């Protein structure tokens, strides 16, 4: 789950990371009063889950409260990379002497949190990584032992020579690491970490991504989710515990397992069709999930035919069959449904479907070929 900058700031601030005062606003009036409280020139920053906000015009300077209101009004009406801006962050404009990058990711390869720091901060760190990887120092941290003081110090020495700044940065490394661990993050970064004319080290912008698996037992983090930052169908799917991604085709897909779901999409393409979505109902699926999945897919007017591709392992195919029967009795599905079921409890599943006059196939290629043909016929 992506956090907005203002949310990430709050988590880092709670961990003790020094940063400029600032607050979030939903209206121009709010932005104005925050700007008045702060005094002087402020920056108004769009709070959307998208990179390149500056280039898109989502970050503006305002020299006084009334300019702040105007700029906030402008930005609050914007759409950046398809996402509506509902909130802006108002912070003092900082005089910047140096800009660094400090990031922490959960790394697959080392299976542990990895620090990445670079004195080339403030710009797109991925560009730095691609063009001048030697400018990024990486350090894996063993979560068993945590971040040791000497590790924080070594990272800080990458960024600064002045020992006061080194000590300040080392402290921030420790605070960032703690925030990362305590909030079950998969990414936490400060970019840029700046020094001002007074030599102070401050975090200017923050980004945190929370591991979705943490949310189950961390309702305090779950409430940070901004539903308005997602497509309605994707938000609905998430609430139903479905992995769903909207695509541009016309063949709706309901599959169990991410790998099989991707292979199904690949096969739809192979047979000349275009998938309308990626949808994984997950391992232990209930009839309710199937109903929710059908509702979400049939809400998409582009969908011309729907394919169920279920290979039962931990998923019981009879549960899926019951779900299909229940859904089609609850609401009318206007497009043809092709069902492929095999595996755990498949005899029972075929019996359930047969009970309402539905049939199912056992072969994936056969099912995909048929649903692609039906979609093409309907188009």
């Amino acid at each position, binding site marked *: 789950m992506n956090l907005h900058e203002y949310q990430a700031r709050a988590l880092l601030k709670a961990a003790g990371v020094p940063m400029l005062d600032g607050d979030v606003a939903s209206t121009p009036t709010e932005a104005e009063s925050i700007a008045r409280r702060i005094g002087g020139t402020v920056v108004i920053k769009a709070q959307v889950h998208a990179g390149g906000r500056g280039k898109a015009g989502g970050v503006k300077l305002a020299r006084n409260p009334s300019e702040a209101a105007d700029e906030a009004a402008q930005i609050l009406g914007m759409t950046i990379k398809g996402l509506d801006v509902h909130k802006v962050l108002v912070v003092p404009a900082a005089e910047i002497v140096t800009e660094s990058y400090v990031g922490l990711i*959960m790394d*697959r*390869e080392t*299976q*542990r*949190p990895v620090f990445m720091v670079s004195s080339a901060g403030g710009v797109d760190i*991925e560009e730095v*990584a*691609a063009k001048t990887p030697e400018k990024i120092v990486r350090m894996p941290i*063993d*979560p*068993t032992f945590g971040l040791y003081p000497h590790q924080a110090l070594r990272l800080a020495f990458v960024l600064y020579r002045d020992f006061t700044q080194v000590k300040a940065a080392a402290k921030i490394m420790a605070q960032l690491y703690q925030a990362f*661990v305590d909030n*079950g993050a*998969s990414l936490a970064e400060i970019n840029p970490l700046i020094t001002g004319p007074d030599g102070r080290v401050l975090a200017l912008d923050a980004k945190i991504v929370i*591991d979705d*698996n*943490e949310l*189950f*037992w961390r309702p305090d983090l779950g409430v940070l989710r901004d539903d308005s930052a997602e497509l309605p169908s994707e938000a609905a799917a998430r609430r139903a515990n479905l*992995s769903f*991604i909207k*695509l541009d085709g016309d063949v709706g897909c309901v*599959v*169990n*397992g*991410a*790998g*099989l*779901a*991707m*292979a199904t*999409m*690949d*096969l*739809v*393409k*192979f047979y000349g069709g275009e*998938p309308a979505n*990626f949808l*994984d109902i*997950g*391992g*232990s699926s209930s009839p309710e999930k199937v109903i929710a999945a059908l509702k979400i897919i049939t809400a998409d007017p582009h969908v011309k035919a729907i394919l169920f591709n*279920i*290979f*039962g*392992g*931990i*998923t019981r195919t009879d549960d899926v069959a019951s779900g299909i029967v229940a859904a089609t009795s609850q609401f009318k599905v206007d497009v043809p449904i092709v069902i492929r079921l*095999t*595996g*755990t409890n498949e005899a029972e599943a075929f019996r359930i479907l047969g009970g309402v006059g539905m049939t199912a196939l056992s072969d*994936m*290629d056969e099912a995909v070929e048929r649903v692609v043909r039906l979609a093409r016929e309907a188009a």
Partner: protein
Amino acid sequence: MSVFADAGTRLLVQGITGREGSFHSRQMLEYGTRIVAGVTPGKGGQTFEGTVPIFNTVADAVADTGANTTVIYVPPMAAAAAIIEAADAGIPLIICITEGIPVMHMSRAMPFVRSRGVRLIGPNCPGLITPGTRTKVGIIPGNICSPGRVGLVSRSGTLTYEVVNHLTRSSIGQSTCVGIGGDPIIGTNFIDCLRAFQDDPATDAIVMIGEIGGTDEQSAAEFVRASVTKPVVGFIAGQTAPKGRRMGHAGAIISGASGTAEEKLAAFEAAGIGVMRRPVEVVELLRARL
């Protein structure tokens, strides 16, 4: 012969009285797996299906039954602790089926697992099955498998069944099928399994099923090129997935230039791995190599 699980497997089931645990324990028993014990804290002294003794702790279960393999079905928030409990009790092979374990939990559990020198398969995986000895540990449907000499390793669950199904229907039996799981942090990777199959005298050819995201398949291809003499065929799911979107589980994400299907398929081809474009092609590719 086979890898990881065979006639010598004495299986413990952690979470045997839960919904998933009890369902699949029955399936494993029916298939022929020797389940020697179950663990559910607070239910020690009871029995499962009238035959399998239940213990309060893994240590008790191991002491009493000599279990040498464990399979974990406990809920996500307790699963990493269950892995650690099993490792602490000295069980040399741990298979964790549970999906949805926080990655931070796994990042903390892995150093402990390694410190005990035990093998973890998973988490978020379907487990493994050795049809020749009727040994099933996990959730792979036994009825789609058949004894034979092809080893299979996969990051995916249901996609594995799809491929195994094609093999069985074409009378190509399997030595062992292993699902390693698609989570960011897993205990056993492709290379571990490829090495085991290469060393297994009962395996003649290997099928590996990967997907987009990460670089495990590329490393595995390099390992095949350098160290595997048996024929290998491979599949990559997500060839048509839009870039930059996360597909279902954390494994399936394309970050930056790394981990695209094209890259992985190129690595397969460079290593002499036969590339399947559709799951069904596994049959003809293997036939051509056996």
